[in-house]
């Protein structure tokens, strides 16, 4: 229905519909499929956003029939979807669901999946278009990508969504990129960082570039520093095998934290196209100065209390080495050496078993140059902070000083809040809904590009390289707090402190 030629299309406000396609989920028996992917597909089906000719093919080693897979997904939708369960919506989705129990790495498995997809094309009219979702362990990426590449259909498009982590370091990321690039062009590769699919993260761009008042003050002249926090109260949730190798630096810092920083610090893109946005993010990542050891604090949680319940130390978690030196907390002071941000520190921190779950970006502005009531204002007069709440309570707050009513001139900090849930009562879509739909549409704006990933790994490698030379004393913070004391020192040295919680 091209609008240019169809006069009836004008003004319908109809969103672009994805082409007919099959979503092939590798690792379909895992938690991600159950908790995120299928509920996201249900939400899209609920809103009529999936193509009419659509199929989901789950591939995994776990033995189960399609019927059982569908039944499990029905239960998952009832439990995890954000919309009420509607039989008609689910049944429409389920009609196109298939499950293939096989080892895709083996030739026989590959044939079986290929045959299923041929059948799907014939029955569902999916026209050979494939969106491959790699929800498999990272070590399986190269072989799955190779097999997919070898079997690319001549008809239709093929895209591949790759879950993090994309590599363990710069070398492995480059190796993986080379393996992917052999079979897929960059515009066919969708490296997922689900933070980018979050509504508030996108709102950060709206806040910066749709509001004339922020851009003139969004720089070193008026911003004192920036704090980005990704705090989790949960532990490693049985993922010791992965976490022991990754630590918080690979799990959160390399991707989510650096992406949030890039979005906060980037220059305005010329438009909202994938390359324009990603070009600006890469410039920020390239301008980042490698932090010295004094600018990095790592920590590991010991025993403590979370929401009134005692929790074990990291080293006591099942599957974790009792002498593990894996960091569960990281705080880093970064500088971006460009005109906008020179000498403005960005303090980033992420950790497990912290006091509460919270992802925020705090832009702290410089103090008023000469408040005439400083003597009587006391502690009440604090700098302005623009706080972007990524999760939970998605929204934006501005901390301003206001006079306390009554005689005298007492100043108190008050928050002006904009909460998504308050102003827009439309349910905020889950990140995976947006990202899967964008991948079907071929829009990579909210996915990370190869050069972004490489820049992120360069920084991580530089930090981790320095760690090989020291032996930290772990654990160094109690579960349920806000991290090690050294992290506070990191800011105190600069005459600053972490935001009050």
């Amino acid at each position: 229905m091209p609008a240019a030629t169809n006069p009836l299309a004008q003004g319908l406000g109809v969103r672009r519909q994805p082409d007919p396609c099959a979503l092939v989920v590798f690792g379909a028996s895992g938690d991600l499929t159950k908790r995120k992917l299928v509920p996201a597909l249900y939400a899209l089906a609920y809103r009529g956003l999936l193509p009419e000719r659509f199929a989901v093919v789950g591939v995994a080693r776990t033995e189960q029939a399609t019927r059982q897979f569908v039944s499990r997904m029905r239960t998952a939708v009832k439990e995890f979807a954000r919309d009420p369960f509607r039989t008609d919506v689910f049944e429409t989705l389920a009609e196109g669901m298939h499950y293939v129990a096989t080892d895709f790495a083996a030739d026989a498995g590959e044939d079986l999946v290929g045959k299923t997809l041929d059948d799907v094309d014939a029955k569902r009219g999916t026209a050979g278009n494939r969106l491959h979702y790699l929800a498999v362990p990272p070590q399986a990426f190269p072989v799955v990508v190779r097999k997919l590449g070898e079997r690319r259909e001549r008809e239709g498009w093929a895209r591949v969504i790759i879950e993090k982590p994309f590599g363990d370091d710069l070398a492995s990321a480059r190796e993986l990129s080379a393996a992917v690039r052999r079979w897929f062009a960059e515009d066919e590769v969708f490296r997922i960082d689900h933070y980018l699919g979050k509504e508030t993260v996108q709102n950060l761009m709206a806040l910066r570039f749709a509001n004339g008042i922020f851009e003139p003050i969004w720089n070193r002249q008026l911003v004192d520093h920036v704090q980005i926090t990704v705090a989790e109260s949960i532990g490693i949730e049985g993922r010791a095998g992965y976490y022991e190798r990754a630590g918080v630096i690979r799990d959160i810092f390399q991707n989510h934290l650096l992406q949030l920083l890039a979005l906060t610090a980037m220059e305005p893109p010329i438009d909202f196209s994938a390359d324009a946005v990603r070009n600006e993010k890469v410039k920020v990542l390239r301008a980042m100065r490698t932090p010295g050891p004094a600018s990095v604090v790592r920590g590991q949680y010991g025993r403590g209390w979370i929401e009134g319940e005692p929790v074990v130390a990291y080293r006591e978690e099942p599957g974790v080495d009792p002498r593990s030196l894996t960091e569960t907390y990281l705080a880093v002071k970064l500088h971006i050496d460009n005109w906008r941000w020179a000498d403005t520190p960005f303090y980033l921190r992420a950790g497990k078993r912290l006091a509460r779950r919270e992802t925020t970006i705090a832009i702290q502005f410089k103090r008023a140059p000469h408040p005439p009531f400083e003597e009587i204002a006391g502690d009440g007069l604090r700098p302005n902070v623009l706080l972007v709440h990524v999760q939970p309570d998605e929204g934006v707050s501005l901390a301003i000083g206001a006079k306390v009513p009554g005689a005298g001139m007492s100043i108190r900090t008050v928050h002006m809040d904009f909460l998504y849930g308050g102003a827009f009562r439309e349910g905020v879509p889950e990140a995976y809904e947006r990202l899967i739909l964008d991948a079907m549409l071929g829009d990579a704006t909210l996915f990370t590009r190869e050069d972004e990933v490489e820049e992120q790994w360069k920084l991580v490698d530089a930090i981790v390289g320095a760690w090989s030379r020291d032996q930290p004393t772990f654990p160094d913070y109690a579960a349920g707090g806000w991290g090690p004391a050294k992290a506070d020192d990191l800011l105190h040295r600069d005459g600053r402190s972490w935001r009050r919680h």
Partner: protein
Amino acid sequence: MGVVAEVERKLAQQRCRQEDDGVPELRASTITDVVWAPPRWLPQARRVLAGLAERNPARTIFLVPLPGRGTGVEADAVVYDFEIGDGREVLSEVIELRLRGEAARHPASVVLPLLISDLPAFCRWRGRPDWDGSALQEIVEVCDRLVVDSSEWRGLPAAYGELAGLFEGIVVSDIAWRRTLPWRVALADRWPQIRKVDRLAVEGPRADALLLTGWLRSRLRRDVALTHRSAATISRVRVDGDTVAPPRQRSLSDSGLLSAELDTLTRDPVYEAAVRSTGA
């Protein structure tokens, strides 16, 4: 105390009372929603608001004209809070103004001071407006957008001619038009075959049928004849005798339809052309 001060005092008192429960409250209005609701439309308007308020936090001002009953303005004001699931509540304010006697002809003087500054003001006009009346003229001057539902009117399509006369003064939208959207999408999907359409048959509200026909006429720049059979909602559409498959999109509730209108702030030239082509 004037009526505006009385309303503000009532709202302020209730906001304080709401805060006593210890739950942080937000006034996160995005619009002022003025509802012109003659008594016979009031129950229906209140029902729509009940479904709408949680979705669009707003200050809602019901204007109930009672031209023949006494004089002056009586006001009620209520603050509703809605939990937003994270231990916070969002407030919506509902003001009901009964405009008696002459006041029913001059609503602007009481609406204007109650509009929330810097936010768009919508007026949902229930029933058919008195096109030449001063009340409509004043509302057009103080609001940014007029939302009607032409399926509430008698005298179609002539009334569309009157409506078109407002287009230069205020952004107008029509819930009947919004209701036709899924069918317009379905018809647009028939491009290019549909470009030679001669006859459209619609089973549904007369307003919806007229607007669909006006839309085809204006977009395709050709004369399209309408055959209409009355029904509560559009149940069947035929193009030159060929039945159009019903749309996949689910139809919205009354609140959902109004909510969709409240998200749009600019003129819709496609709608305006459709109205002008209804044969009014």
